[in-house]
């Protein structure tokens, strides 16, 4: 790999500019990871609520899976389940829409309409979903209403992932496949799908993550079900006996997510 300072200075990137950029990058990195590292440290603390890491212990980790304390397992299962459903359905929908958008006559406005959901406050969307879908249409809150809320949340992001690969896709390849005898299905499976795969995997990954971490919309749409973020939120905001465990649990989830992301990045940036 080439060192960054071996590049000749260009534009804003004078020698001092590069130094400044590196400094900013390091600062951002510290800002991002300091609280997470702190949290992980606290999860090994015998008295986590004091905010002092030592004396160190692994007590919380061992008690995470014991009897009454293992209540987090069900929210985890719920969140993973909804996450997978959202991931697949949002990606499938994004693929359908994304392939059509570049062909549409006024794709700009269409795109803005799809993507502007991103900027609306989550709490408002949650309330709106609750009022509209429950009050007017009569959908009962619970698993499927949470799924719906997450789906709406994830779709614009999934669409972005798909659009990036769709606009770069060379449609002339479909002519070539057709010319060689491929029918509609074969053209999609053999040519379009593999070439759109980077976007599709990115969409699957981010949709899952968005759903897995979602809280504000879930608050209103959840009905009786408990997702993992909701569980962590309630447990850490009430001074229950669980609260010491939350640090350990958060640390476990953080490390697991980190490893998953690493694996996904490997997969996405893989060279053929």
């Amino acid at each position, binding site marked *: 790999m080439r060192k960054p300072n071996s590049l000749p200075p260009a534009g804003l990137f004078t020698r001092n500019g590069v130094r400044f950029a590196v400094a900013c990058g390091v600062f951002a990195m510290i800002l991002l990871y300091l609280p997470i590292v702190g949290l992980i440290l606290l999860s090994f603390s015998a008295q986590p609520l004091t905010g002092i890491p030592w004396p160190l212990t692994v007590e919380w980790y061992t008690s995470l899976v014991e009897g009454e304390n293992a209540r987090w397992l069900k929210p985890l299962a719920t969140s993973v389940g909804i996450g997978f459903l959202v991931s697949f359905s949002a990606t499938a929908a994004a693929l359908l829409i994304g392939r059509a958008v570049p062909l549409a006559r006024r794709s700009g406005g269409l795109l803005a309409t799809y993507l502007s959901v991103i900027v609306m406050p989550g709490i408002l969307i949650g309330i709106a979903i609750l009022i509209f879908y429950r009050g007017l249409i009569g959908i009962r809150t619970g698993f499927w209403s949470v799924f719906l809320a997450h789906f709406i949340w994830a779709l614009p992001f999934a669409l972005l992932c798909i659009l990036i690969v769709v606009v770069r896709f060379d449609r002339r*390849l479909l*002519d*070539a496949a*057709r*010319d*060689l*005898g491929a029918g509609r299905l074969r053209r999609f499976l*053999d040519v379009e799908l593999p070439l759109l795969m980077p976007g599709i995997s990115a969409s699957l990954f981010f949709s899952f993550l968005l759903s897995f971490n979602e809280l504000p919309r879930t608050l209103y749409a959840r009905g009786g079900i408990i997702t993992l973020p909701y569980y962590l939120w309630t447990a850490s905001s009430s001074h229950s006996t669980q609260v010491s465990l939350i640090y350990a649990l958060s640390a476990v989830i953080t490390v697991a997510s980190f490893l998953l992301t690493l694996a996904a990045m490997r997969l996405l940036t893989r060279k053929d």
Partner: protein
Amino acid sequence: MSELATTGPGTESDPILTLANVRQSYSGVLALRGISLDVAKGEFLTLLGPSGSGKSTLLRVIAGLEEPDSADVMRLNGHSIVGVPPEARNVSTVFQHYALFPHMSVGENVEYSLRIRKVAPEERRRRAEAALALVRLPDKYGRRIHQLSGGERQRVALARSLVMGPDILLLDEPLGALDERLRLDMQIELIELRRKTGATFILVTHSQEEAITMSDRIVLMRAGTIEQMGNPRDLFASPATEFAARFMGFENVLRGRILRVSAQDAEIDIEGTTIRGRVVAKNLRPGDTAFAAIRAEHIHVAKAADRTNHLRGTAGAPVYKGRFTDVPFRSPAGDLMVRLDGADDVLPPQADLSFAPETCVIGSIGPESAGQEETSSKGKKHD
């Protein structure tokens, strides 16, 4: 390699492709204005023309990638292909941009049409390697597309199209993206390939030099119609229209009025100068507006023995071209480009120019020629 050649050279009476009155338009602009064409088995046919002449559109219509607005007859190998989708037509296209599948290896690309046709893997591999050997890429089976040079990609595209044994191989400006040297090599190789496979080739190009080098027959197109059709010698020596003359590389095309016409030759008055030449148009009458076309290399300096086609010209700034020098001359009949073999000759400012009547072609400017210049710039969708 016999499996690559499904069609042997056939006879004129047995056309592999018949088109009659094919019409096509894009959003109101006519791209094809009733094209009728027979292609013989094993023929190397070239569709030649400038951008927007409809040559690429015609190729896509034959491939099935465009559905024509109307067609009286479209028959491929004895079967009507009106409304038949491209995947069901046994023709194959080599695209200008190659359109190789970037996510597949060279071998997978070449085998694709066989995979679709459910040919067994070993058979597929054997035929793919035979096709790659045919295009002189025998050891590239496992390569990725991005590892290949432009010329190699071109060959892979050829192998991919040939492997299925198409009734007709369609080539859409396949040499356009190659550099000069490679292009000349590929011209020879395409001729060889056609000879080895005996397949029917239809080539689209805007290069008259390419068309003349490779084809058995050239179809010169202009604004969605066929301007002239014939073998390379016919088109090169006897362009029937002013457009054809210019397109076939006649540097000097002058307009005048017919004075006298006989069966073989005619005399034309250009700005007061009488020029004698070969007649290439029927129905030419004295008094008609006509053109006279002469190639730069056929005009000679200071050979005033014969008084026919003799002009006195003033030399302009010469353009050195390496093997020869082009010198523009002002003459009473108009500007003339003269090609001199001796690149270093020193010219007097005034010179006597002459050319043999048999090297000068005289044809009519039809009423249709005048209004078509604008339309030829429209409908550029595939050029």
